[in-house]
């Protein structure tokens, strides 16, 4: 089992007094299916010198070494615990790019947890939100986004522009959450200038007077995090199931699965 799973822990542990070369050798000697060429290629792409000790490398470079080690064993499943934490934006981009290439070219299923929400939309196929140890949201990212809408009213609630059922509902959410939830409202935020609601697409609400827009993954995650009573678990899609089957069969497929976790 160990041979088929790659793992990058949160602190990206490496032997600080070992060189990059020693880590590559460690990978080669401790893993039966080690892919030395690919591992070295990955590190060369980011100009990481093999003769340098780990403690002299930047955080981003160390992350690349960790990832190269985990990918070098040719896993079918790659697990990453908070891989993006403590990385600067550029290192984050490069790290995600390496991941994406591995997932698409080698068919590795990638599962990772992250607090960094904004950058995940382009990379993840599947999202799970955990809150207090319970699954609140799970589903294909595209389906999740398609299932929600953002409604914006240009004026603050209670003023002339904020009228009718939506306005009532907007104010009800504070007083009566159950009613709002049943109507399909996930979250409501207000400031001096506008009221914004994240609602289910099928929500039986009149949209008159509201600007309707698509939501981003970040908005979706924040909406569900802010309202722990809300939950949405979509049934697994066919591509999901196929991806799992492929991973179990041990063949190379083009399936990728990402998890996004917000504790």
């Amino acid at each position, binding site marked *: 089992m*160990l041979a088929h799973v790659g793992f990058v822990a949160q602190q990206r*542990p490496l032997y600080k007094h070992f060189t990059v070369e020693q880590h590559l050798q460690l990978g080669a000697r*401790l893993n039966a299916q080690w892919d030395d060429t690919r591992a070295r290629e990955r590190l060369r792409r980011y100009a990481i010198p093999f003769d340098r000790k780990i403690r002299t490398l930047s955080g981003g470079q160390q992350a690349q070494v960790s990832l190269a080690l985990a990918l070098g064993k040719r896993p079918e499943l790659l697990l990453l615990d908070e891989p993006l934490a403590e990385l600067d934006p550029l290192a984050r981009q490069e790290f995600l790019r390496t991941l994406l290439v591995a997932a698409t070219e080698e068919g590795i299923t990638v599962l990772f947890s992250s607090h960094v929400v904004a950058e995940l939309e382009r990379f993840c196929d599947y999202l799970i939100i955990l809150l207090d140890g319970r699954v609140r949201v799970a589903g294909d990212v595209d389906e999740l986004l398609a299932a929600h809408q953002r409604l914006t009213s240009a004026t603050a609630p209670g003023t002339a522009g904020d009228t009718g059922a939506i306005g009532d509902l907007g104010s009800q959410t504070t007083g009566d959450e159950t009613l709002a939830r049943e109507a399909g409202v996930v979250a409501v935020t207000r400031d001096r200038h506008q009221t914004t609601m994240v609602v289910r697409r099928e929500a039986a609400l009149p949209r008159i007077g509201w600007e309707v827009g698509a939501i981003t993954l970040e908005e979706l995650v924040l909406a569900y995090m802010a309202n722990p009573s809300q939950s949405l678990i979509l049934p697994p899609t066919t591509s999901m199931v196929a991806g799992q089957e492929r991973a179990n069969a041990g063949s190379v497929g083009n399936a990728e699965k990402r998890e996004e976790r917000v504790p």
Partner: protein
Amino acid sequence: MIWLTWQQHRFMVFVGGLALVLLVPFLIMTGLDVSQEARAAIACVPPPDDTYLCLRTFDTLVRESPVPLVLSSLPLLVGAFIGAPLVSRELEQGTYLLAWTQGVPRRRWLIAKLAMLGGLAFLGFAALAGLMAWWSAPVDPLVGSWLTFDAYGLAPFAYAFFALALGVAAGAIVRQTVGAMAATAGIFVAVRLAVAQLRPYFLPPLIAQPPGPSPTWRSLLVQKDPKHLLVLYQPADRFWTFQGIEAGIFVALALALLVLTLWWMRKRIA
């Protein structure tokens, strides 16, 4: 694993080798003194009323020699400096998450490391045991081997194996290198002292009338009972039986600790 063990522990291997190189001349010098005094003791003609007189100088020399103490404290160093950091350093620095997620399961990782480092320690102790056999050769026929019991024969090997296993277990449980080293040292000394207290009673002692068994100085005196005027003792020919019992106790403890460590690493360290 051999490669990795060497890369991670070569410094300690060098230190161990250096210690060995320094100990050899020390043992040779003191050993020469011992054989010289032994010759003097043999050449000496004792007065009929005190046959022990000729052996007194020799007996004192062996009794006060730092060699048995130095040799019997080497296992402690093996436990504290090789055993204790083996797992605790990986836990402390988080690198166990790297080491144990490669293709080699953690059980094999530990056994491979212990086999290699334990094997090297064994070679070092074998070299010292050879030298110690030469060192003690004149001691045995004159004042008996009980004086150098824990520095001679099987005992040091068993102590070293026990100390190594103790260090690894302490490291896995304490998860912190310095703490594991301290725990190893403390427990090792305590267990050694406790077993040494029990040692005279490994077998029921023999009983003799005063002044005691003949020759008294070659046996292990268990107890002198002033009231009943009896002497309890272990005769010299039980030396190797006692070595076997002592070694057996420590090897059994070491094996139990290894099983505990493997279990702990599997169940208690996520």
